[in-house]
């Protein structure tokens, strides 16, 4: 059914249609509206046979989910940013135990400085944890990916993070097609766990594993991720058949057939990129775009095949690995090993900085002339950066950096010393 609704609420409706049996809720912006929506759906009786638990922290949220999933319940939770870091130990644990929990990440920056707005630093920090990570381009895909996520998680018995851009998707009102219960039921069978805590057939889960077997256990977890590379396109195809629209898969290309320059990104920013690509194509420029849906597992071969014919790629990243630069770029370098492609890393939109068409146009023009630095920070205010560097050089006690920069920008009504 078509609806004009908030992204978070659309996701809550979709998740409820997946008939979760245990939901753990803890508030953190910008994910909160999703669990609020689910709370209302459960409390009003629209979703029966579901325990909705208000926990005391994100660490508890995922820990409760671990217990519930191990006892055979379809389990869901959501978090973002600091919350994801607070549950980090349990994030690795859920994956290590092979529990098919689905968790939404309302992508948000990580402090300090504290910042509630969107970038991808949070989920990227958990890229090695063993969870499948899929990124939604828009709210329709956010809805659809959740439905696929439960199926994927349960087929492989491993947890899945559905990453949706905070505010840009979670708080945006747009038209979304919410599927019917019958459609979802036909796509998502009843949860049949691979392992279950049951007195009629006792098992020990989470035992200590020493050097004699640890490598093998981790290898098998890696193999599962590799199987997800096959399963994701299959599920996407089946989804299209049953729901009549494209969603998910490993990656999506846009006007890349004869492109010499391809812009690579994850998540909602691909919408703006496509607009710029259209403008440039209209002027005869051979540029295209590619969005990665599945970041973990990383579709190395598929990316190679989709990009190898181009002259250059511009990787637009909403996360920064301090000390090297891009996170996604690093992985792409592996995918493109052996090609002569030029690859430019652009760090953009950190902490919710707007990524505008004008900035992107200027950036892509420069890239096409191969005039970009290997690592670029889009719309970086170099004036304030340079001034702060000078201060630090001049003064031993130069003070807190973030606050100094805000002062310089005039956000705080005080003058710089």
């Amino acid at each position, binding site marked *: 059914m078509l609806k004009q609704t908030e992204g978070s609420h659309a996701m809550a409706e979709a998740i409820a249609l997946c008939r979760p049996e245990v939901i753990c809720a803890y508030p953190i912006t910008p994910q909160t509206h999703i669990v609020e929506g689910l709370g209302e759906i459960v409390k009003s009786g629209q979703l029966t046979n579901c325990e909705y638990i208000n926990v005391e922290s994100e660490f508890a949220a995922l820990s409760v989910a671990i217990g519930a999933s*191990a006892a055979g319940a379809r*389990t869901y939770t959501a978090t973002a940013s600091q919350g994801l870091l607070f549950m980090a130990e349990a994030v690795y644990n859920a994956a290590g135990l092979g529990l098919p929990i689905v968790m939404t990440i309302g992508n948000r920056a990580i402090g300090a400085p504290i910042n509630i707005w969107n970038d991808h630093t949070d989920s990227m920090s958990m890229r090695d944890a063993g969870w499948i990570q899929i990124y939604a381009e828009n709210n329709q895909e956010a809805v659809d990916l959740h439905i696929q996520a439960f199926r994927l998680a349960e087929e492989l018995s491993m947890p899945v993070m559905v990453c949706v851009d905070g505010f840009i998707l979670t708080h945006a009102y747009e038209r979304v097609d919410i599927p019917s219960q019958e459609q979802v039921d036909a796509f998502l069978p009843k949860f049949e766990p691979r392992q279950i805590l049951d007195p009629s057939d006792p098992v020990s889960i989470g035992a200590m594993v020493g050097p004699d077997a640890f490598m093998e256990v981790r290898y098998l977890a890696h193999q599962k991720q590799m199987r997800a590379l096959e399963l994701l396109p299959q599920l996407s195809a089946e989804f299209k058949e049953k729901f009549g629209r494209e969603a998910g898969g490993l990656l999506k290309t846009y006007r890349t057939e004869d492109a010499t320059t391809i812009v690579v990104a994850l998540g909602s920013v691909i919408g703006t990129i496509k607009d710029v690509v259209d403008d440039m194509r209209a002027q005869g420029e051979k540029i295209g775009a590619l969005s990665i849906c599945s970041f973990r597992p990383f579709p190395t071969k598929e990316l190679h095949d989709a990009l190898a014919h181009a002259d250059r790629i511009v990787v637009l990243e909403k996360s920064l690995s301090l000390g090297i630069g891009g996170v996604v770029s690093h992985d792409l370098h592996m995918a493109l090993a052996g090609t002569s492609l030029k690859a430019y890393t652009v760090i953009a939109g950190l902490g919710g900085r707007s990524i505008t068409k004008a900035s992107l146009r200027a950036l892509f023009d420069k890239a096409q002339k191969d005039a970009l630095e290997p690592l670029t920070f889009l719309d970086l205010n170099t004036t304030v950066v340079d001034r702060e560097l000078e201060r630090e050089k001049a003064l031993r006690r130069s003070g807190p950096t973030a606050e100094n920069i805000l002062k310089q920008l005039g956000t705080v009504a005080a003058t710089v010393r």
Partner: protein
Amino acid sequence: MDNKSVKQPVKFYQTGTFTVGNRLLAPDERSVQANMTRTNSLNSGHRACQGCGEALGARYAIDAAMRAANNQVIAANATGCLEVFSTPYPETSWQIPWIHSLFGNAAAVATGVAAALKVKGRKEVRVIAQGGDGGTTDIGFGCLSGMFERNDDVLYICYDNQAYMNTGVQRSSATPGAARTATTMAVGEDPGAPFGQGKNVPLIAMAHEIPYVATASVAYLHDLETKVTKAMSMRGARYIHILVPCPLGWGAASQDTIKLARLAVETGLFPLFEAEHGEVVSSYKIRRREPVEEYLKMQKRFAHLFGKQPAVETIARIQGIADKNIRKFGLLSLS
């Protein structure tokens, strides 16, 4: 007052000991462990140290819970000695469905298991969370308090050996004053753990007004079983805190585990009591009061109190703690 040890009109002392013999009790009141058909939930062959109080406490507690729940028990375990010595895979000592996730989340994992069982309509299956004092009073405390506060249907059992024994005897918030640990060395002006720190989790549990809180000791196994059985007869959040001497960490002889556990109670340092909905409903009366020296001097962790010049003031301070417990919980008068 269901505590059988308290309500018995006649004290069944065996000659030369203070133990209540099973053979003197009615068959239905006898220890679970005296029964040939006991479940052996924590099976033999595990790797606990000789004289481990925790292994003993866990076996008795879980077997009693199994009997009370008709063998329908699932346990969530915190990281720690109990987890490590019981599951060096591919071996496992657990005859029950058992899960270990992390150090600090046993209570939350148990909440999740209980929620799954509820939604699946399996009311007959009961959930136990268990951990040491570190996993309970320190790192797992947030999850524990959350589980209490929501009154989740979980029995949490803390096996308290008063320090982080699994990592090599470091101080926890359950370590008593003056005790030597690897992080509270017996050096300097005030050797050992500082006084005036630490927390009493049974009392904190009571402040949550949960249905049932009890303390127990491996020296009083029948009392321990009775308390577990009682806890299992209730629903909601329940907490049992068991003192389990650790020969390694306490620097005591393996054969003295029970003796030490008993002395902790008989000195008044570890009061045995039960509370329901935040109110104390019974306490175990001391049969023969002992001075704290008798308890302290058997343990190398307190050896610095008994050098050439005994630390009279420190010992008096510890005696003061025992005296206060005796007053507070009415441990002497048989009321």
